[in-house]
């Protein structure tokens, strides 16, 4: 049971990769995917307040459930404007 994670821009440089896989257990959320990734790539830690999530290409809350085959993206603040959608 795996989900795909995608990293961009500064996050991909910090992690040294643009893609990762995480095991998704029961009830895993987008925020928990990020925390799981921080264990593997400590340089990603501490960005909680600034990153957003997308699940399958749509912006999603940190509490959004993530299941098998889902694609989770960690979205740094976009350069062109505020973070409000």
């Amino acid at each position, binding site marked *: 049971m795996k989900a795909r994670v995608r990293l961009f821009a*500064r996050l991909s440089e910090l992690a040294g990769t643009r893609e990762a896989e995480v095991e998704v257990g029961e009830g895993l959320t987008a925020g928990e995917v990020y925390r799981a990734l921080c264990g593997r790539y400590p340089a990603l830690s501490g960005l909680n307040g600034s990153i957003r999530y997308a699940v399958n*290409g749509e912006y999603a809350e940190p509490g959004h459930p993530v299941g098998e085959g889902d694609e989770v993206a960690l*979205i740094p603040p976009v350069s062109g404007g505020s973070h409000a959608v």
Partner: protein
Amino acid sequence: MLFEVTSAVLDPQRLIDHVRKDESGAVALFSGVVRNENLGRRVLYLEYDSYQEMAEQVMREIADEALARWPITDVAMQHRTGRLEIGEASLLVAVSAPHRKAAFEACHALVDRFKEVAPVWKKEVWEGGEEWIEGEAVNRSG
């Protein structure tokens, strides 16, 4: 409609031709270009990264919003990724309409909206350093 995130050089004429229909009296085009200065720093070049599939989906969604809101005929948007030199276009937005007011308003709004929500990031590279430009604290125009 045409929505593309690409590493190829952007071509304004192609977008204009794409959106123009026989009932169009006006085409408004925006070209965002790499400038040599930001926040007082001399920029050497930029590097754009993007979540391509999602950025193209965002283009589609905001174009649908614009088509619902203004009497316009068609929309096309392109963003370039990878290394861009000073003067090269990073973003093109073209809007056709029977009349110019709607074309201008929708084009301007689409550029604003895209920069607010699209998963696209730029890294500025200057003499002796580089930085991913993120969020509100930094310059959001251009």
